[in-house]
């Protein structure tokens, strides 16, 4: 079950995509960001979550390089190379923001003060282990950034990821084969096919993308899923 039929790979490579787009995955995740939350968004699809948080909810974004109350991208004339996010992209600060140093910023993370962190993944295990920083390849330059601190310290960890790799291999598996970012840290996984909760009993599929069946997801997952519906 590690590799899937050429058929499903072809489906993904051509435009006959089944399931949610990257934007829709971000949008789906955003529904679960509650009013008043303190949120840290990882680089990539997670960054898109901010723009889809439902109107009427006030959410405060933390970026680990020292800002609570991160606002949207600046207009060209507002650009300040000293005001960036953890992905080193220019951002803004909202009224009510606060700057602080790295020691204080990671105290905020490690001390379990941030409610939600949304991250990408290479692999997620049945128990909620996460691998998202290294393939373990011997020639790779290892680089971890703040990922290990975030998964160890933030109260709720959401993962947004394609359900399988580009070549169709499962990313949700009994044990991660890549080096871990953290052990038993993931709470919920948003993929292009479904939403899965990591529970004591196992991986609980709580929602399917339109036109996607439980069986279709199960076939692309190396762990037996529990169907919540």
């Amino acid at each position: 079950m590690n590799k899937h039929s050429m058929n499903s790979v072809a489906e993904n490579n051509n435009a006959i995509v089944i399931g949610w787009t990257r934007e829709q995955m971000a949008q789906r995740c955003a529904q679960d960001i509650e009013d008043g939350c303190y949120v840290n968004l990882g680089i990539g699809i997670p960054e898109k979550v901010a723009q889809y948080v439902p109107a009427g909810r006030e959410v405060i974004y933390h970026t680990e390089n020292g800002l609570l109350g991160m606002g949207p991208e600046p207009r060209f004339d507002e650009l300040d190379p000293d005001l960036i996010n953890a992905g080193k992209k220019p951002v803004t600060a909202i009224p009510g923001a606060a700057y602080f140093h790295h020691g204080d910023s990671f105290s905020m993370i490690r001390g379990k003060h941030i409610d939600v962190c949304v991250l990408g993944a290479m692999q997620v295990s049945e128990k909620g282990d996460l691998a998202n920083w290294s393939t373990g390849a011997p020639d790779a330059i290892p680089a971890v950034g703040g990922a290990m601190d975030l998964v160890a310290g933030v109260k709720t960890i959401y993962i947004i990821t394609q359900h399988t790799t580009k070549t169709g291999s499962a990313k949700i598996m009994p044990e991660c084969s890549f080096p871990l970012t953290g052990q038993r840290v993931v709470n919920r996984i948003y993929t292009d096919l479904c939403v899965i909760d990591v529970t004591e009993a196992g991986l609980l599929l709580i929602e399917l993308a339109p036109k996607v069946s439980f069986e279709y997801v199960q076939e692309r997952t190396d762990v037996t899923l529990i169907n919540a519906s």
Partner: protein
Amino acid sequence: MINKRVASCAIAINDIKDGDTVMIGGFGEAGSPIELIHALIDHGAKNLTVINNNTGSGRVGLAALIENGQVAKMICSYPRTANSMVFPELYRSGKIELELVPQGTLAERIRAAGAGVPAFYTPTSVGTPLANGKESRCFDGEEYVMECAIKADFALIKAKQADRYGNLTFNKTARNFAPIMAMAATNTIVQANEIVELGDIDPENVVTPGIYVNQVIEVSKPLQESKLVKEGVVYP
């Protein structure tokens, strides 16, 4: 009289010697003390251990220091960036050592050195390869890893304002590692955009008290790393 003001970056960094450990502020280019780094390149001290979150971009600033063969070892959390090519090449050919540290652990280890704490326990990295060879211990049923303080001979940092006592303020997210590095180094050297009179910085708003600062240089119009990288500038 206390006057930590120094006339030039060259004078300030002149006591750095071969084999020293040097903390360099900045997260990417934000807060990178590029004039001080270039002065260190001119100075030529070798076999340095450098602590920075990254490894520089293009061929200026920290990347140029590395390219110039002055750095034996990097301690950092993220030695890759969009425009970093110097470090990866040296690393792959075994010419530079790397100690990879999770960003928050790096920050806390630096802060610990400054705060007189030789070691502490953290949940970060438990169960990962970065905890290999480190002591672990349970508190209240949870597992933690013991991490030791990282101190340095010198810290090179960039501030917005400084006064002659060495009190500092910073600009936005350029603050990042500077305040904790200033605490953790025996000798902290600051390039400030502006040197102001005593009392111009409200005592409530001082971010780094002068006690952590040894030398201050005014660099009123610092180079912008990303601009140099885009233009393909190579230092020296």
